């Protein structure tokens, strides 16, 4: 119990302390801030691992007037996400050693990173719907600061636009989600997520479930981001500093899908079932839409952002199917996208620093020629991105397509099958844009302008992520076995 609270307290206190530390000694504190942040991240990660292993439960009264309690615990669904969050929390700090922040005080930068981590951890840990919402909101302002202050230094209006879009769009989503949560809590009489899941919508009629589910889906769909609510993502990713992009893509987007599992699928099976076809269709449109946009996008960071839209489309598709396979697929794809997008954004962030921009139309030195390590990471990253079997991206996408082909009994089978076929088509588009990027920047014979290969912190982060892509790709059971028990509770399907 103490472990769990400490896992939350460390980023909270470190983050606050760093932000409040004056900027009197900007230069001197650069390295110190990084060190403090690194120590805090590692400590947090250790505690998170301990939490995941020991699975403590925390339950304190917090707002008796609203019936809100500090309820935190871990289960199989949140455990992989927690580990991912903690690991990337370390990774962004290590990576920042190679690329110190510019645009503001480093203490603010590292403080914001800690707070984002706090928000994500609290979101995944919380078992109270309202606390879930509050945690959900914690990440907004730090991320806004990261984008608007530490983002691409060339373009102030774009920074304002991107950070504003991010925060406003997300607030719209989370407020709609809040409305949904309150409706859910009010109509089912409990805010405890486990109790909500256990009730399985008992006592709620179909129309109520549908209204609540619709609110929650739109709200969380914005966060995912689900087509057509995705237009905040590309600018945010393009402008954000590397650490911001990584956290945004790898963790923050996951909060949306995680929320759907917790708040929609489990407690509102009938309402979600009714809306699932629409939801799934949006996901599939996202897959194709994002993929196609990637085919002609010339800003590498935007490209990866659009590919995120496509990848999250698979998650959405898996969630919609209503089967164990689908949920497992979605949860796995969540993690997979977390790892892959983190890898790609670390990579592209570094490239952007080297190139001065992320424009693909400019002739660059071929990565394979001048920086083989970056080249390797790029190849693995995009191979995983196109869903190559044997890498982490494959399992979630394949299983999501499978689940769409054979959805739960209450879904329109024919329609879902059409979606499955379209989703499969999306994988070809993914191959198209992945190879396009490789052809543009990986192969070729140019060796000028030369740049240094990854080394030190940057390389260690990339190498670990490449290894993660491989290991999880070869042994998906690591994640799937963790989630399976709790997933089968949600779908109440008997395993064969």
């Amino acid at each position, binding site marked *: 119990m103490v472990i769990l609270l400490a896992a939350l307290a460390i980023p909270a206190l470190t983050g606050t302390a760093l932000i409040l530390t004056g900027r009197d000694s900007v230069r001197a504190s650069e390295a110190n801030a990084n060190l403090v942040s690194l120590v805090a991240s590692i400590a947090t990660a250790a505690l998170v691992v301990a939490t995941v292993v020991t699975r403590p439960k925390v339950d304190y009264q917090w707002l008796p*007037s609203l019936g809100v309690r500090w309820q935190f615990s871990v289960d199989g669904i949140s455990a992989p996400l927690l580990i991912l969050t903690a690991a990337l929390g370390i990774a962004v700090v290590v990576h920042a050693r190679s690329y110190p922040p510019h*645009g503001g005080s480093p203490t603010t930068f590292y403080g914001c990173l800690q707070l984002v981590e706090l928000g994500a951890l609290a979101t995944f840990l919380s078992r109270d719907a309202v606390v879930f919402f*509050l945690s959900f909101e914690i990440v907004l302002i730090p991320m806004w600061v990261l984008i608007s202050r530490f983002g691409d230094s060339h373009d102030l209006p774009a920074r304002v636009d991107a950070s504003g879009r991010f925060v406003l769009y997300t607030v719209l989503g989370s407020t709609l989600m*809040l*409305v949904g949560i*309150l409706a859910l809590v009010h109509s089912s009489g409990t805010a405890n997520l486990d109790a909500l899941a256990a009730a399985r919508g008992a006592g709620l009629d179909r129309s109520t479930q549908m*209204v609540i589910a619709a609110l929650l889906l739109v709200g969380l769909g914005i966060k995912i981001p689900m087509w057509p609510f995705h237009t905040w993502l590309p600018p945010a990713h393009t402008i954000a500093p590397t650490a911001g992009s990584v956290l945004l893509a790898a963790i923050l987007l996951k909060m949306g899908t995680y929320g759907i599992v917790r708040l929609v699928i489990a407690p509102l099976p009938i309402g979600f079932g009714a809306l699932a076809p629409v939801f799934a269709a949006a996901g599939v449109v996202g897959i194709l839409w994002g993929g196609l946009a990637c085919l002609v996008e010339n800003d590498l960071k935007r490209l990866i952002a659009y590919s995120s839209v496509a990848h999250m489309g698979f998650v959405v598709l898996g969630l919609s199917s209503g089967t164990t396979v689908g949920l497992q697929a979605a949860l796995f794809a969540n993690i997979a996208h977390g790892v892959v997008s983190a890898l790609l954004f670390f990579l592209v962030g570094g490239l952007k620093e080297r190139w001065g921009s992320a424009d693909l139309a400019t002739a660059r030195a071929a990565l394979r020629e001048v920086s083989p390590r970056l080249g390797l990471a790029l190849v693995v990253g995009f191979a995983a991105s196109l869903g190559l079997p044997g890498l982490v991206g494959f399992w979630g996408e394949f299983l999501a397509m499978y689940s769409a082909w054979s959805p739960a009994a209450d879904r329109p089978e024919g329609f879902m099958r059409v979606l499955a076929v379209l989703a499969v088509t999306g994988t070809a588009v993914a191959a198209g844009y992945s190879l396009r990027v490789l052809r543009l920047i990986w192969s070729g014979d140019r060796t000028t302008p030369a740049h240094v290969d990854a080394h030190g912190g940057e390389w260690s982060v990339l190498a670990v992520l490449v290894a993660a892509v491989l290991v999880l790709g070869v042994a998906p059971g690591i994640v799937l076995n963790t989630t399976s028990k709790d997933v089968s509770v949600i779908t109440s399907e008997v395993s064969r």
Partner: protein
Amino acid sequence: MSQAVVAVNAGVLLPVLAPAIGAAAVLVVDVVAQRLRRTHYLIALVSLVVGAVGTFAGLGMAAGGVRQTLCLPDGGQCMYAADSVASGLQLAALLAAGVTLLLSWPDDKKQSSGNTAVIVSLVLAATAGATAVAGARDLGSWLVALELATLPTVALVALRGARSAISGAIALLTTALVSFGLLALAAALWFTATGSGFLTPAAALAVIDDPTRRPILVLSVALVVAGIGFKLSLVPFHAWTPEAYDGAPLPIAAFLAGVSKIAALGALLIVIRAIAPLGAPALTTIAIVAAASMTLGNIMALRQDSVVRLLAWSTVAQAGWVVMPLAAASSAAVFASGAYLLAYVLATLLAFAVVAALVQTRGAARARDLSGYHGLVHDHPVLAAALGLALLSLAGLPPGVLGLVAKVTALRPVVASELWLLAVVAAVNAVLGVAVYLRWLRVVMATAEPETDKTAPVAALAPSAHPATLVAVGLAALALVVTSINPQLILGLLGS
């Protein structure tokens, strides 16, 4: 008239009596010893503190708990009844008045304007009105207390004597007069409909079944909404707000934004509670007014370049949030409305306090203009942090958890009554609100322009802020931090 002797319990009436007596005492002392300045303030503060202590007994009472006095011996009806919500509002009004006084604390270096006693006694009088109206249960005390809370503010705005002050005062006055006319008419109609001079549910219940009298009651309620809408700055009764705020001295603007709103809500809640048994349809008007206020307030605030006007429009928007839960007509709604108001008042006072401190250090021109806040985080990190906290609390984003919890609280009854449209409008306005406050915050956080930084070195900042102002900032900030960590401190005031 029969031998109706009312029983007076001074202890219960202390929150009302203390400021009233304080006002009288200030005038008396002024007559006795002129040229005193601090003494007046000390007397006022003492009386406010005494009043605040007097509210303690009424705070956090269980549902149905009420402290009453001025009761009729026969019928047992009381003209003064303070439940926990009323007590909470009283406490807030007294403390807000205290902050106002701290902000207007006389500066020894400046020439006295000679009307210190007038200002202090007017503030106390208006505060007494605000505390009285929260407990008033009959038409007479209700009308008198409301007017007592309003009229002094007109004088307070006008006292500065400047052209803009007069304009603001005129705007305030004319609207106040007409509104009072409407309220008087409303009171008369209430009496016509119910035949009772008491604002109690029992009186309203008697009308339900009578088809001829019910429309009269509805008309009465509509007039109340209109009349109080003026005081709460609800659209379309809001137009005086920016003028009066802009024209008034800053502390008085803070008073208008704080104590006046508390008084208005106190008055409204009494009526709402009285007609709660009649059901929600009566309050469709409130929903419309709330939605309009939020939307227009936020949109107009987005366009303001003067921070005081921005805060004025923000008040309009926040007023919409305050009354929004009342559309649901339940005891939870009354609680929610009160809670939201308290959170709003606390955050707004902090914002005003910071602006006041900046007026003292940087001069009115710079402190009242949005562009003057450029790079504030570098020049005054502490003030900037306090301002940031206040703005985020108003926006309802962590770390301003109080504001966020307030939004949760306010939306709860709305959702519970399934007013989906209103909830969605609120969600959209949450976004607009965030846009408003982040627009300001972005300026605060911006990196200082090199030239402004050089020309105005920090050391050369002529005057530092008055200690009393800093105390006000500190107290408000502390209160906001503490209540953000544990919002139950505020929610608990209003009962469980």
